[in-house]
């Protein structure tokens, strides 16, 4: 099964499209688009866990928030730290934490795992609240965005559009890597484990280690997204590590659809737009959110992406909704 060249063309087109956005969009839309790309990475990392590995975590924000805080704290305490070094520090620390937490929590499965991750998220939140001297507690931490050091030149990313380009390239590349990851040996291993874990064991795969590696990887990616989130807002508060942030990513992924790679990206898009405008329309938006959620669980478990796939199939005259697992993600 060769990856169709098409996918690469689409990626290049998307990047080019992204590159002209600053010429087309107004500044505030560009600002929002930057945020959407960051949250898309966060959502993609979560979907690798939920959609590909079938692990329902209610604690993904602990990595997102950890990455966000580590970036902020290191920028504040290490003078002259460059932007990418701060991101790398975040990445390293979230990777280590993901490995340790994963080792502890992955001994459990299903609902129990979900509950544990939520409890650990609460633990992280409590620590962030309590550890005022480092995290700023309830006040949060504000930073000023450091410059990019490219080795030969220093690049200012203080303007909305220059930071947008940075995010487009670095975060965009991370998303592409995640997509590529789903086709690599490890990505396939994870997917196959969800399909038939027992068989994988008897084919020589250590499924426990695989799960731990994946959990660590997705945690690190979430931490990366968190670090960029801090750099974007130049501010981090405990809401970044709160259960609300887990809820947010769950919503993005679920609304977008867990069954395709690009579903969560769409979900992040819709979520951010809605969060901006739905609350202007009604202050009862949590009610509508709940209703949408229940409706989708009951009737559209595949999310928006599944709807789009179904519509496409309907247009192309094919009948029946086929269950498009990530296994066939490359087809869509």
């Amino acid at each position: 099964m060769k990856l169709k060249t098409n996918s690469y063309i689409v990626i290049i087109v998307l990047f080019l499209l992204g590159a002209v956005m600053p010429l087309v969009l107004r500044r505030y839309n560009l600002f929002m688009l930057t945020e959407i790309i960051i949250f898309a990475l966060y959502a993609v990392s979560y979907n690798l866990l939920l959609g590909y590995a079938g692990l329902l975590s209610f604690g993904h924000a602990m990595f997102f928030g950890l990455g966000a805080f580590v970036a902020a704290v290191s920028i504040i305490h290490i003078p002259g730290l460059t932007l990418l070094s701060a991101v790398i520090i975040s990445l390293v620390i979230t990777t280590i934490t993901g490995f340790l937490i994963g080792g502890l929590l992955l001994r459990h499965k299903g609902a129990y795992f979900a509950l544990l991750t939520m409890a650990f998220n609460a633990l992280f939140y409590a620590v962030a609240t309590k550890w005022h001297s480092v995290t700023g507690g309830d006040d949060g931490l504000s930073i000023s965005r450091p410059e990019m050091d490219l080795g030969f030149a220093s690049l200012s990313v203080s303007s909305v559009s220059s930071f947008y380009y940075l995010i487009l390239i670095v975060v965009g590349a991370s998303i592409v890597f995640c997509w590529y990851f789903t086709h690599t040996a490890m990505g396939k291993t994870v997917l196959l484990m969800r399909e038939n874990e027992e068989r994988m064991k008897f084919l020589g795969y250590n499924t426990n280690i695989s799960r731990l590696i994946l959990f660590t990887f997705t945690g690190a990616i979430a931490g990366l997204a968190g670090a960029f989130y801090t750099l974007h807002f130049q501010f981090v508060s405990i809401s970044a590590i709160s259960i609300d942030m887990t809820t947010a990513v769950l919503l993005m992924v679920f609304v977008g659809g867990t069954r395709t790679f690009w579903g969560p990206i769409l979900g992040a898009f819709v979520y951010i737009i809605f969060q901006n405008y739905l609350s202007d329309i009604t202050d009862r938006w949590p009610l509508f959110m709940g209703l949408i959620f229940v409706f989708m669980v009951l009737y559209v478990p595949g999310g928006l992406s599944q709807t789009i796939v179904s519509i496409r199939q309907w247009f192309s005259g094919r009948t029946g909704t086929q269950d498009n697992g990530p296994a066939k993600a490359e087809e869509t």
Partner: protein
Amino acid sequence: MKRSIIKSLCFLSAVLILSLPLYAAAADTIKIGATEPLSGTFKDIGERYLDGVVYAAKVINAKGGLLGKKVEVVPIDSELKPDVATRKAQNLIMKDDVRFFCGGTGSSVGAAMSQLAERENVIMYTYGMAAATMTGAKCNRNFFRPCANTDQQSYALAELIARKGYGKVAIIAQDYSFGQEALAAFKKKLAQANPSAKIVAELYHPAGTKDYAPYISQIIAAKPDVIFTPNWGNDLTILLKQGRPMGMSQKIFSYYINDEVTIQALGDDSLMIGNMGAEVYTLSIPTKKNEEFVASFYKDMGYYPTWLRGKAYVATMFWAEAVKKAGTTDVDAVIKAWEGLTYDGPAGLWTMRACDHQAQMPLWYTEIVAKTKFFDHAFEAPAGMAEAKDVSVPCAETGCIMKKK
């Protein structure tokens, strides 16, 4: 495959286009973005603050507006999350060129908004965020606080306790920066005002504590004459509700005792009567200006401009004075105009101090009594005044280094 990509791209662009503004900002209005939690658990607090801001705009507009322009309040649901608040505010700045923001709830939202204000060169003022550091170590020229901070409020209550001659004080606060700042300021002032007074118990509990019994037992065991707490909302309600039956009978001196919602939520006036609080605005300020304000508000709205509403109203009127003096909505001009400006409103004479942008004003202390003219439950007796100079923190002590442009 191609088709699906094309379609999803179409969808994406459609959403993008929809998110573009459909109208240009009207030039003849002055917009204020009010960041408040308008959904979720603290919705009621956000709505009451917003009510005060909106009423201020209404009063201004009824008198012909500000600089001949209408004032329009744009509510921003912060969800009590700094990132949500700043994102929406940022959008308003970029989209509609909104230059003025205000908010009263959540010091983390305030810290983020203050920083945004500096970066984007807009003005953020608060009528409720009390953390002293916001006009202290974290001050900046774009952030104004036309309300009391923790220092001022704690000073007022410490003064009051000292004056009443209480010797043994138990203090209890929520275990986060607000509570810690409030207690620190209280202890500092009490030591000055009455050196012989003793803190017999100092307790911190997590915000949202459900069982206060272990704390109450420690308070009772310490046998204080009086209890001081900056707790608000449910943390105050439950403390009283669980404490009184266990024999914690001391009077409570609290920041926000004048919250009619707390009194109603207790549902038992006897738990409240005798307690005292101090605030920049309370309904029972016995000045002519306040009585007029209360009367006209009541006539227009059908209810009283209690606590939060009043604070937001007075602060917004103060801001309007600054714009009026500047004669323009240019941010730098308004900042300049507001620094040192004095406003004589319903809550007395307020001065915006230039060195840290912290308003200096009298605080009004009041005792909860069984019968008032306002409600059929217990409420505040006519307020007494703690003079501005008694609750003031000298510029040098605030830790604020104001950068000038």
